[in-house]
């Protein structure tokens, strides 16, 4: 008997939840805001779905309804990716130790 590939994906999913659980508990509370902005940025990896939706199945008519939804999703996800990572970077740059950088 063959195992359905769904089961493999489910295993990845469940194990990732556990990884997330332990990794996030080890995040220091003072970095919880950057944690939220970075998780927001990485969840925009949904853009891969958007790219496939927008570009694949190109049969001469790229502006098919299905493609247009893909393109819209690309814009939204791109805003999030750039905005999320850059704002995280900006925040993290502000966390400094004592004495260093005394103006």
């Amino acid at each position, binding site marked *: 008997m063959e195992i359905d590939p769904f089961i493999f994906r489910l295993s990845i999913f469940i194990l990732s939840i556990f990884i*997330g659980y332990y990794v996030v508990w080890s995040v220091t509370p003072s970095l919880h805001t950057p944690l939220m902005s970075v998780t927001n940025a990485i969840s925009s990896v949904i853009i891969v779905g958007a790219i496939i939706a927008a570009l694949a199945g190109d049969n001469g008519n790229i502006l098919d309804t299905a493609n247009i939804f893909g393109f819209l999703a690309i814009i939204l996800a791109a805003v999030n990716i750039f905005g999320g990572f850059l704002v995280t970077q900006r925040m993290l740059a502000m*966390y400094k130790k004592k004495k260093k950088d005394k103006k």
Partner: protein
Amino acid sequence: MISANLLAVFYLISGVLFILALRGLSSPETSRQGNLFGIIGMAIAIGVTIISVENFSTGFLYLIILLLIGGSIGAFIAFKIPMTAMPELVAGFHSLVGLAAVFVAISAFLNPEVFNLGFQGNIKIASLIEMSLGVSIGAITFTGSVIAFLKLRGIMSGSPITFIGQHYLNLILGIAVVVLIFYLCKTQSTNLFWSIIMISFILGILLIIPIGGADMPVVISMLNSYSGWAAAGIGFTLENTALIITGALVGSSGAILSYIMCKGMNRSFFNVILGGWGATDQTSLSKTKEQKPVKNGNADDAAFLMKNASSVIIVPGYGMAVAQAQHALREMVDALKKNGVKVSYAIHPVAGRMPGHMNVLLAEANVPYDEVFELEEINNDFANCDVAYVIGANDVTNPAAKSDPQSPIYGMPVLDVEKSKSVLFVKRSLSPGYAGIDNDLFYRDNTLMLFADAKKMTEEIVKNL
């Protein structure tokens, strides 16, 4: 050409890099490197996807243009946004993830061939279920985050909106979504798919409107979690490992943050979600209490007290963010340090409007992070401290949480500011805090009330030091 297996390996690498990005946040030193890992992971995922689609015609051109448009909007927002507006920014970004998930799912439903999900009108049942769950959670995330954004931005009132039968209505809508998904699998009807999206949009609004402004930290964390589950749902549909891993990470991250926030308020998750706190009959209680005498001080008194103290603990709250007082505060602390006063900061888990909000504001004002402490780390130090300077915080200092079982916040962990020799309370008026509860601390003998805007008062004190 890139084989499906190689593609999957690259997605796996992206997923691992995302895990490392979160791992980096365990300390500020490693966090910047972590963010870089995240960026690399994202670049890999996008790059290999483009190569795999192998479409370098007009569509590719559109893709690049759209990426640039979206990217510049995102970058512009990221550089312009003031740190005090982080909560609404994050809420706004969550709404985009939710909507993107909805769009991808719609596209997959209309054109299932490109995702190998079967054919229109004959989509695989498993894919259909995953897709509908993803689209439903995505839609809830979208409208819920929009409401959270409006409330945080002040466009919509922060007070809870409740009506009779609200929870039953939500329950019915929730059941309706499940039933519709069941019939969608049977009939493959496009109309049912659209109905699921519409009902989920409405459900998102209804879920967030009854939750009051003070509970926003929980709401934001919860929507963070939802956006993750939505991404995971789409990941299952598209059979994409990077999306599944990321969705699970984000989902559990948001869930943990919600849990921490609820614990910080000593409330159960369901109590927060069902909402309506702050609309209680506390007003009558506080009115009678307001007759009690309070000691009213000015900046001169405050400066004198702090100058002669040997240790000062600063307790910032949302009021500091509203008044943008963090820079003035830091100037005050610098002046105190010159006088040989030991200064530290005490942060309550739910201070501000999102997890870690106060820490970011203090970091922005160049406060070194090793002077900033969490509740458990610093709470015992109040007993040995000369002055507690409470700026813009209220409920998180209320001793009623420890002594008065009648109080709605009874049992909530609070900062023991009343144990310090004297308490300076910067506040605009005697009005109760967000929870609508009178604070007994105002009337104590060792409390000096400083009635003023947090920023103006702090600046005045700096002048007097």
